[in-house]
Protein backbone atom coordinates (compact mmCIF):
# COMPACT_ATOMS: atom_id res chain seq x y z
CA UNK A 1 0.00 0.00 0.00
CA UNK A 2 1.36 3.46 -0.85
CA UNK A 3 1.85 6.17 1.76
CA UNK A 4 -1.30 8.03 2.71
CA UNK A 5 -2.19 11.62 3.48
CA UNK A 6 -4.26 12.85 6.40
CA UNK A 7 -6.83 14.34 4.06
CA UNK A 8 -7.77 10.87 2.87
CA UNK A 9 -8.74 9.82 6.38
CA UNK A 10 -12.15 9.76 7.92
CA UNK A 11 -13.72 9.84 11.36
CA UNK A 12 -17.15 8.48 12.16
CA UNK A 13 -19.04 8.19 15.42
CA UNK A 14 -22.04 6.35 16.80
CA UNK A 15 -23.72 6.15 20.17
CA UNK A 16 -23.21 2.88 21.98
CA UNK A 17 -26.12 0.84 23.28
CA UNK A 18 -23.80 -0.98 25.66
CA UNK A 19 -20.78 0.90 26.95
CA UNK A 20 -17.68 -0.46 25.26
CA UNK A 21 -19.49 -2.48 22.60
CA UNK A 22 -18.58 -1.23 19.15
CA UNK A 23 -21.21 0.60 17.15
CA UNK A 24 -20.52 1.17 13.45
CA UNK A 25 -20.46 4.88 12.63
CA UNK A 26 -23.65 6.59 11.49
CA UNK A 27 -22.41 10.16 11.65
CA UNK A 28 -19.22 11.23 9.93
CA UNK A 29 -17.32 14.18 11.33
CA UNK A 30 -15.00 16.32 9.24
CA UNK A 31 -12.14 16.84 11.70
CA UNK A 32 -9.06 19.05 11.40
CA UNK A 33 -6.83 16.60 13.23
CA UNK A 34 -7.01 13.68 15.60
CA UNK A 35 -4.52 11.94 17.85
CA UNK A 36 -6.42 9.03 19.35
CA UNK A 37 -4.00 6.41 20.52
CA UNK A 38 -3.71 3.14 22.34
CA UNK A 39 -2.09 4.00 25.66
CA UNK A 40 -0.40 1.37 27.80
CA UNK A 41 2.28 1.27 30.46
CA UNK A 42 3.96 -2.00 29.68
CA UNK A 43 5.47 -3.98 32.53
CA UNK A 44 9.22 -4.43 32.20
CA UNK A 45 10.63 -6.95 34.65
CA UNK A 46 13.63 -5.82 36.67
CA UNK A 47 14.51 -9.29 37.93
CA UNK A 48 18.02 -9.45 39.27
CA UNK A 49 19.70 -12.21 37.28
CA UNK A 50 23.25 -11.12 36.59
CA UNK A 51 22.10 -8.55 34.05
CA UNK A 52 21.56 -4.81 34.18
CA UNK A 53 18.87 -4.73 31.56
CA UNK A 54 15.22 -5.60 32.00
CA UNK A 55 14.66 -9.24 31.15
CA UNK A 56 11.00 -9.57 30.28
CA UNK A 57 7.94 -7.59 29.23
CA UNK A 58 4.30 -8.23 29.99
CA UNK A 59 1.35 -6.45 28.52
CA UNK A 60 -0.39 -4.23 31.00
CA UNK A 61 -3.61 -2.28 31.30
CA UNK A 62 -4.44 0.05 28.48
CA UNK A 63 -6.96 2.65 27.45
CA UNK A 64 -7.50 5.06 24.59
CA UNK A 65 -6.84 8.77 24.69
CA UNK A 66 -6.27 11.70 22.39
CA UNK A 67 -7.60 14.95 21.03
CA UNK A 68 -9.94 15.55 18.15
CA UNK A 69 -9.81 19.05 16.75
CA UNK A 70 -12.62 20.26 14.54
CA UNK A 71 -14.57 23.27 13.40
CA UNK A 72 -17.77 23.52 15.40
CA UNK A 73 -20.52 22.28 13.10
CA UNK A 74 -23.98 22.18 14.68
CA UNK A 75 -24.86 19.21 12.47
CA UNK A 76 -22.61 16.82 14.37
CA UNK A 77 -21.85 18.79 17.52
CA UNK A 78 -24.60 17.47 19.82
CA UNK A 79 -23.21 13.95 19.47
CA UNK A 80 -19.93 15.05 21.06
CA UNK A 81 -21.66 16.80 23.92
CA UNK A 82 -23.86 13.78 24.62
CA UNK A 83 -20.55 11.96 25.19
CA UNK A 84 -19.39 14.45 27.82
CA UNK A 85 -20.32 14.82 31.48
CA UNK A 86 -23.48 16.83 31.09
CA UNK A 87 -27.19 16.51 31.63
CA UNK A 88 -28.69 16.91 28.18
CA UNK A 89 -32.15 17.95 27.07
CA UNK A 90 -33.79 18.40 23.68
CA UNK A 91 -36.53 20.79 22.61
CA UNK A 92 -38.07 21.91 19.32
CA UNK A 93 -39.51 20.17 16.30
CA UNK A 94 -36.53 20.49 13.98
CA UNK A 95 -34.08 22.03 13.95
CA UNK A 96 -33.74 20.92 17.53
CA UNK A 97 -32.14 22.75 20.46
CA UNK A 98 -29.94 20.57 22.63
CA UNK A 99 -28.99 22.03 25.97
CA UNK A 100 -26.18 20.63 28.09
CA UNK A 101 -25.59 21.59 31.70
CA UNK A 102 -22.97 20.19 34.08
CA UNK A 103 -23.73 16.94 35.83
CA UNK A 104 -22.07 15.36 38.82
CA UNK A 105 -21.82 11.85 37.40
CA UNK A 106 -18.86 9.97 38.84
CA UNK A 107 -18.32 7.84 35.79
CA UNK A 108 -19.36 7.50 32.18
CA UNK A 109 -22.45 5.53 31.24
CA UNK A 110 -24.69 5.08 28.24
CA UNK A 111 -28.44 4.82 27.86
CA UNK A 112 -31.02 5.51 25.20
CA UNK A 113 -33.06 8.70 25.16
CA UNK A 114 -32.45 12.40 24.79
CA UNK A 115 -31.89 13.18 28.46
CA UNK A 116 -29.07 10.78 29.20
CA UNK A 117 -25.36 10.95 28.50
CA UNK A 118 -23.92 8.31 26.20
CA UNK A 119 -20.64 6.72 25.29
CA UNK A 120 -19.61 6.66 21.66
CA UNK A 121 -17.61 4.44 19.37
CA UNK A 122 -15.18 6.42 17.25
CA UNK A 123 -14.00 4.89 14.00
CA UNK A 124 -10.88 6.35 12.47
CA UNK A 125 -9.57 5.34 9.06
CA UNK A 126 -5.90 6.15 8.50
CA UNK A 127 -4.50 5.31 5.09
CA UNK A 128 -7.35 2.87 4.56
CA UNK A 129 -6.69 1.06 7.84
CA UNK A 130 -9.55 1.01 10.32
CA UNK A 131 -9.31 1.65 14.06
CA UNK A 132 -12.43 1.22 16.19
CA UNK A 133 -12.27 2.97 19.55
CA UNK A 134 -14.97 2.00 22.00
CA UNK A 135 -16.38 3.31 25.26
CA UNK A 136 -15.30 6.83 24.37
CA UNK A 137 -16.23 9.96 26.28
CA UNK A 138 -15.18 13.59 26.09
CA UNK A 139 -13.21 14.24 29.27
CA UNK A 140 -12.46 17.88 28.55
CA UNK A 141 -13.01 20.33 25.75
CA UNK A 142 -12.00 23.77 24.56
CA UNK A 143 -13.78 26.11 22.19
CA UNK A 144 -11.96 28.99 20.61
CA UNK A 145 -12.37 31.41 17.74
CA UNK A 146 -9.50 31.10 15.31
CA UNK A 147 -9.31 33.03 12.04
CA UNK A 148 -12.91 34.04 12.72
CA UNK A 149 -14.18 30.46 12.85
CA UNK A 150 -15.35 28.73 16.01
CA UNK A 151 -13.32 25.60 16.58
CA UNK A 152 -13.13 23.08 19.34
CA UNK A 153 -10.85 20.40 20.65
CA UNK A 154 -12.48 17.40 22.24
CA UNK A 155 -10.15 15.46 24.52
CA UNK A 156 -11.33 11.89 24.40
CA UNK A 157 -10.81 8.92 26.70
CA UNK A 158 -11.92 5.46 25.69
CA UNK A 159 -11.93 1.93 26.97
CA UNK A 160 -10.52 -0.13 24.12
CA UNK A 161 -9.47 -0.37 20.48
CA UNK A 162 -9.96 -3.09 17.89
CA UNK A 163 -9.91 -3.42 14.13
CA UNK A 164 -13.31 -2.99 12.47
CA UNK A 165 -14.67 -3.24 8.97
CA UNK A 166 -14.31 -0.19 6.74
CA UNK A 167 -17.14 2.30 7.20
CA UNK A 168 -19.01 3.94 4.32
CA UNK A 169 -19.17 7.68 4.93
CA UNK A 170 -22.13 9.94 4.30
CA UNK A 171 -20.91 13.52 4.60
CA UNK A 172 -23.32 16.32 5.45
CA UNK A 173 -22.63 19.72 3.88
CA UNK A 174 -20.45 21.88 6.20
CA UNK A 175 -22.28 24.37 8.42
CA UNK A 176 -19.46 26.33 10.04
CA UNK A 177 -19.74 29.31 12.35
CA UNK A 178 -17.65 32.07 10.79
CA UNK A 179 -16.73 35.66 11.58
CA UNK A 180 -20.25 36.95 10.93
CA UNK A 181 -21.79 34.45 13.35
CA UNK A 182 -20.43 35.50 16.73
CA UNK A 183 -21.90 37.73 19.42
CA UNK A 184 -20.44 38.23 22.89
CA UNK A 185 -22.55 39.39 25.81
CA UNK A 186 -21.76 40.40 29.38
CA UNK A 187 -24.24 40.70 32.22
CA UNK A 188 -24.61 40.40 35.96
CA UNK A 189 -24.34 36.78 37.01
CA UNK A 190 -27.56 34.91 37.60
CA UNK A 191 -29.47 31.69 37.10
CA UNK A 192 -30.88 33.17 33.89
CA UNK A 193 -28.73 36.24 33.26
CA UNK A 194 -30.29 39.21 31.52
CA UNK A 195 -27.98 39.96 28.65
CA UNK A 196 -28.29 43.35 26.99
CA UNK A 197 -26.56 44.68 23.93
CA UNK A 198 -23.77 42.84 22.16
CA UNK A 199 -20.32 43.74 23.46
CA UNK A 200 -18.29 44.56 20.37
CA UNK A 201 -14.85 44.91 21.99
CA UNK A 202 -13.81 41.29 22.41
CA UNK A 203 -10.78 40.03 20.56
CA UNK A 204 -11.03 36.27 20.88
CA UNK A 205 -13.02 33.95 23.09
CA UNK A 206 -12.02 30.68 24.67
CA UNK A 207 -14.35 28.49 26.70
CA UNK A 208 -12.95 25.37 28.27
CA UNK A 209 -14.11 22.73 30.71
CA UNK A 210 -12.15 19.89 32.18
CA UNK A 211 -14.05 17.13 33.93
CA UNK A 212 -10.79 15.48 34.97
CA UNK A 213 -11.68 12.17 33.39
CA UNK A 214 -9.45 9.16 33.99
CA UNK A 215 -9.42 5.64 32.63
CA UNK A 216 -9.93 3.14 35.45
CA UNK A 217 -8.51 -0.34 35.11
CA UNK A 218 -9.78 -3.03 37.41
CA UNK A 219 -8.49 -6.53 37.99
CA UNK A 220 -10.25 -8.84 35.54
CA UNK A 221 -9.16 -10.94 32.62
CA UNK A 222 -9.16 -8.00 30.25
CA UNK A 223 -6.49 -5.39 29.75
CA UNK A 224 -8.79 -2.66 28.47
CA UNK A 225 -10.11 0.00 30.84
CA UNK A 226 -13.10 -0.92 33.00
CA UNK A 227 -14.69 2.52 32.92
CA UNK A 228 -13.97 6.22 32.68
CA UNK A 229 -14.25 8.18 35.90
CA UNK A 230 -14.82 11.90 36.26
CA UNK A 231 -13.41 14.29 38.85
CA UNK A 232 -13.81 17.94 39.66
CA UNK A 233 -15.17 20.16 36.90
CA UNK A 234 -12.89 23.07 36.12
CA UNK A 235 -14.42 25.49 33.66
CA UNK A 236 -13.24 28.89 32.55
CA UNK A 237 -13.55 31.58 29.95
CA UNK A 238 -10.50 33.40 28.66
CA UNK A 239 -10.37 36.40 26.39
CA UNK A 240 -9.02 39.85 25.77
CA UNK A 241 -10.82 43.02 24.86
CA UNK A 242 -10.15 46.66 24.21
CA UNK A 243 -9.67 48.36 27.57
CA UNK A 244 -12.27 51.15 27.63
CA UNK A 245 -13.65 51.19 31.15
CA UNK A 246 -12.68 50.09 34.67
CA UNK A 247 -15.97 48.29 35.20
CA UNK A 248 -14.79 44.72 34.90
CA UNK A 249 -11.40 45.45 36.44
CA UNK A 250 -13.31 46.76 39.45
CA UNK A 251 -15.53 43.66 39.33
CA UNK A 252 -12.40 41.53 39.56
CA UNK A 253 -11.09 43.54 42.53
CA UNK A 254 -14.46 43.47 44.27
CA UNK A 255 -14.96 39.77 43.48
CA UNK A 256 -18.17 40.55 41.69
CA UNK A 257 -19.14 37.68 39.44
CA UNK A 258 -20.38 38.11 35.89
CA UNK A 259 -22.22 36.17 33.24
CA UNK A 260 -20.53 35.85 29.87
CA UNK A 261 -22.03 34.42 26.72
CA UNK A 262 -20.84 33.66 23.21
CA UNK A 263 -23.73 33.12 20.83
CA UNK A 264 -22.66 31.92 17.38
CA UNK A 265 -25.43 31.49 14.89
CA UNK A 266 -26.21 30.96 11.25
CA UNK A 267 -29.41 32.30 9.70
CA UNK A 268 -30.36 34.62 12.55
CA UNK A 269 -28.91 36.81 15.27
CA UNK A 270 -30.12 34.72 18.17
CA UNK A 271 -30.19 30.97 18.61
CA UNK A 272 -33.98 31.10 18.77
CA UNK A 273 -34.16 32.78 15.36
CA UNK A 274 -31.25 30.95 13.78
CA UNK A 275 -31.29 27.83 11.68
CA UNK A 276 -28.25 26.50 13.52
CA UNK A 277 -25.75 27.62 16.09
CA UNK A 278 -24.33 27.32 19.57
CA UNK A 279 -24.38 29.21 22.86
CA UNK A 280 -21.48 28.94 25.30
CA UNK A 281 -22.56 30.62 28.49
CA UNK A 282 -21.00 30.98 31.91
CA UNK A 283 -23.75 32.01 34.33
CA UNK A 284 -21.42 32.87 37.19
CA UNK A 285 -17.88 33.79 36.27
CA UNK A 286 -15.28 35.01 38.73
CA UNK A 287 -12.42 36.98 37.23
CA UNK A 288 -9.25 35.16 38.24
CA UNK A 289 -7.16 37.79 36.55
CA UNK A 290 -7.88 40.99 34.69
CA UNK A 291 -4.60 42.30 33.35
CA UNK A 292 -4.07 45.64 31.69
CA UNK A 293 -0.72 47.09 30.71
CA UNK A 294 1.07 49.52 28.48
CA UNK A 295 2.87 46.90 26.49
CA UNK A 296 4.58 49.19 24.05
CA UNK A 297 4.42 52.51 22.29
CA UNK A 298 2.58 51.08 19.32
CA UNK A 299 0.49 48.48 21.11
CA UNK A 300 -3.21 48.73 21.74
CA UNK A 301 -4.19 48.80 25.37
CA UNK A 302 -6.04 45.57 25.94
CA UNK A 303 -7.48 43.83 28.99
CA UNK A 304 -6.75 40.14 29.20
CA UNK A 305 -8.82 38.05 31.54
CA UNK A 306 -9.40 34.56 32.76
CA UNK A 307 -12.71 33.93 34.41
CA UNK A 308 -13.37 30.83 36.44
CA UNK A 309 -16.89 29.48 36.13
CA UNK A 310 -18.35 28.61 39.50
CA UNK A 311 -21.57 27.12 40.80
CA UNK A 312 -24.68 29.15 41.33
CA UNK A 313 -27.47 28.40 43.78
CA UNK A 314 -30.61 27.21 42.04
CA UNK A 315 -29.05 27.07 38.60
CA UNK A 316 -26.26 25.79 36.42
CA UNK A 317 -22.70 27.07 36.47
CA UNK A 318 -22.68 27.05 32.68
CA UNK A 319 -24.76 25.88 29.77
CA UNK A 320 -24.08 24.93 26.21
CA UNK A 321 -26.94 24.96 23.74
CA UNK A 322 -26.71 23.70 20.18
CA UNK A 323 -29.33 24.17 17.48
CA UNK A 324 -28.98 21.35 15.02
CA UNK A 325 -30.89 19.53 12.29
CA UNK A 326 -29.83 16.22 13.84
CA UNK A 327 -32.68 14.38 15.51
CA UNK A 328 -31.09 12.43 18.32
CA UNK A 329 -33.50 10.01 19.88
Amino acid at each position, binding site marked *: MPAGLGGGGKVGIAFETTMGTYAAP*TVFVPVLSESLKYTEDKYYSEQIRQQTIVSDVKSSYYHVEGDIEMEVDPTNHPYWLYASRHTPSKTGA*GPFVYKFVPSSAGSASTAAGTTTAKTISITVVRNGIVFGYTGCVVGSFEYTIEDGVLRCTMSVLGLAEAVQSAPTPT*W*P*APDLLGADAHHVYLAASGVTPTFGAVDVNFNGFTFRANHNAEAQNRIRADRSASYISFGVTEAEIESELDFLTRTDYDNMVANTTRAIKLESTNGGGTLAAATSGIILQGNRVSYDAYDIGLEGMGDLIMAGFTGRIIGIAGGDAYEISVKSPAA*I*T
Partner: protein
Amino acid sequence: MAYKLEVDHPDFPKDFEFDLDGILVKNKGSRTLTEDEEQAFLSKNFRTVKEVYGHSTIVKVTGTSELSSKEVKAIKEGGEG
Protein backbone atom coordinates in the same frame (compact mmCIF):
# COMPACT_ATOMS: atom_id res chain seq x y z
CA MET B 1 -30.42 -0.43 -15.15
CA ALA B 2 -27.91 2.03 -13.72
CA TYR B 3 -26.87 2.15 -10.09
CA LYS B 4 -29.37 3.94 -7.87
CA LEU B 5 -28.37 5.31 -4.45
CA GLU B 6 -30.96 5.86 -1.75
CA VAL B 7 -30.15 7.51 1.57
CA ASP B 8 -32.21 6.97 4.69
CA HIS B 9 -30.50 8.47 7.73
CA PRO B 10 -32.76 8.26 10.77
CA ASP B 11 -31.13 11.23 12.54
CA PHE B 12 -31.59 13.78 9.77
CA PRO B 13 -34.62 15.41 8.15
CA LYS B 14 -35.95 14.68 4.69
CA ASP B 15 -34.00 16.44 1.93
CA PHE B 16 -30.94 16.96 4.16
CA GLU B 17 -28.15 16.57 1.64
CA PHE B 18 -25.33 14.05 2.00
CA ASP B 19 -22.14 13.81 0.02
CA LEU B 20 -21.32 10.22 -0.89
CA ASP B 21 -17.79 10.58 -2.18
CA GLY B 22 -18.78 13.41 -4.49
CA ILE B 23 -22.32 12.23 -5.25
CA LEU B 24 -24.96 14.40 -3.60
CA VAL B 25 -28.06 12.57 -2.45
CA LYS B 26 -30.88 13.95 -0.33
CA ASN B 27 -32.02 12.12 2.76
CA LYS B 28 -35.06 9.89 2.15
CA GLY B 29 -34.40 10.47 -1.56
CA SER B 30 -32.54 8.70 -4.32
CA ARG B 31 -30.20 9.41 -7.17
CA THR B 32 -29.59 7.35 -10.29
CA LEU B 33 -26.00 7.59 -11.45
CA THR B 34 -25.03 8.43 -14.99
CA GLU B 35 -22.30 6.44 -16.64
CA ASP B 36 -19.92 9.41 -16.24
CA GLU B 37 -20.68 9.68 -12.51
CA GLU B 38 -20.15 5.99 -12.03
CA GLN B 39 -16.88 6.15 -13.90
CA ALA B 40 -15.72 9.16 -11.86
CA PHE B 41 -16.59 7.35 -8.61
CA LEU B 42 -14.71 4.25 -9.69
CA SER B 43 -11.69 6.26 -10.82
CA LYS B 44 -11.54 7.97 -7.43
CA ASN B 45 -12.15 4.96 -5.20
CA PHE B 46 -11.05 2.00 -7.36
CA ARG B 47 -14.15 0.29 -6.01
CA THR B 48 -17.65 0.33 -7.44
CA VAL B 49 -20.54 2.09 -5.77
CA LYS B 50 -21.92 -1.32 -4.90
CA GLU B 51 -18.65 -2.37 -3.29
CA VAL B 52 -18.39 0.81 -1.24
CA TYR B 53 -21.99 1.24 -0.12
CA GLY B 54 -23.35 -2.27 -0.56
CA HIS B 55 -23.18 -3.05 3.15
CA SER B 56 -24.10 0.39 4.47
CA THR B 57 -27.05 0.62 6.81
CA ILE B 58 -27.81 4.15 5.64
CA VAL B 59 -27.20 3.97 1.90
CA LYS B 60 -29.02 1.44 -0.25
CA VAL B 61 -27.62 0.54 -3.65
CA THR B 62 -29.80 -1.03 -6.32
CA GLY B 63 -29.36 -1.53 -10.02
CA THR B 64 -26.33 -2.56 -11.98
CA SER B 65 -23.28 -0.97 -13.47
CA GLU B 66 -23.56 0.98 -16.71
CA LEU B 67 -19.93 0.09 -17.36
CA SER B 68 -18.82 -3.19 -18.84
CA SER B 69 -16.94 -5.55 -16.59
CA LYS B 70 -13.92 -4.98 -18.81
CA GLU B 71 -14.11 -1.21 -18.20
CA VAL B 72 -14.50 -1.72 -14.45
CA LYS B 73 -11.52 -4.06 -14.37
CA ALA B 74 -9.36 -1.66 -16.36
CA ILE B 75 -10.11 1.27 -14.05
CA LYS B 76 -9.55 -0.86 -10.94
CA GLU B 77 -6.25 -2.11 -12.25
CA GLY B 78 -5.26 1.48 -12.93
CA GLY B 79 -5.42 2.00 -9.20
CA GLU B 80 -3.13 -0.82 -8.33
CA GLY B 81 -0.02 0.77 -9.77
